[in-house]
């Protein structure tokens, strides 16, 4: 019995808090250095922001970049902004990736991983669609070709809220 309670206590101690960011919640803060100055989510209020967390070692991230470029080109004029936060520990890895896969949207760098922790990211890549009111519209993990349509639909639906 004693052993069982000891095991239970250990398991509880090991288990990470299973929190998740949900739609409707106010978006966590995001303020990281970027390729063109500081990237601040609060400053983008009024826009629909697609916050993406990526790393150079993540294969689906590479596939997501052309799609994000496409979305930025298609909806940028209507108040849409892609903010892709890199979580590589080494900046060189991120730079190498960006040289290979060019990005026409805002890039931020968070090597310490504070922002993915705040956004309670569960997998790589992960995206959080933030509405013009600063509230989370959609949280998504992974990047699969068959999910692009649903992601784009969510962006279009959120853009309808832009004044």
């Amino acid at each position, binding site marked *: 019995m004693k052993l069982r309670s*000891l095991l239970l206590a*250990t398991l509880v101690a*090991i288990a990470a808090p299973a929190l998740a960011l949900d739609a409707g919640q106010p978006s966590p803060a995001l303020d990281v250095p970027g390729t063109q100055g500081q990237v601040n989510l609060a400053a983008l209020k009024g826009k629909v922001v697609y916050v993406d967390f990526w790393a150079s070692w993540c*294969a689906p*991230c590479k596939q997501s970049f052309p799609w994000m470029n496409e979305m930025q080109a298609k909806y940028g004029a209507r108040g849409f902004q892609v903010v892709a936060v890199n*979580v590589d520990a080494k900046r060189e890895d991120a730079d190498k990736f960006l040289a290979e896969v060019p990005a026409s949207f805002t890039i931020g760098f968070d090597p310490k991983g504070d922002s993915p922790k705040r956004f309670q990211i*569960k*997998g*790589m*890549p992960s995206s959080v669609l933030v509405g013009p009111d600063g509230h989370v519209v959609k949280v998504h993990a992974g990047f699969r070709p068959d999910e692009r349509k649903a992601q784009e639909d969510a962006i279009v639906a959120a853009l309808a809220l832009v004044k």
Partner: protein
Amino acid sequence: MKPLTLITGLALSATLSGCSTFALPQPWEKGNLARPEMTFGGDALEQRYQQHIYTSKEAASGGSGIGGGGCGCN
């Protein structure tokens, strides 16, 4: 309770609680785990071939390297 059992128990619990300080790597911390040299095999093509056979026999996939960052999106 015998003193030996008590000491063993205490030692075990001390060792176990030590594990709790090692948090699992977060999804964004798997950069090193995703490196090719962190997988068991040597040849990428051969490994992929073996994994294909293993997957079809096991009726489950994943767990061999973190190519997809553990997001299940491969």
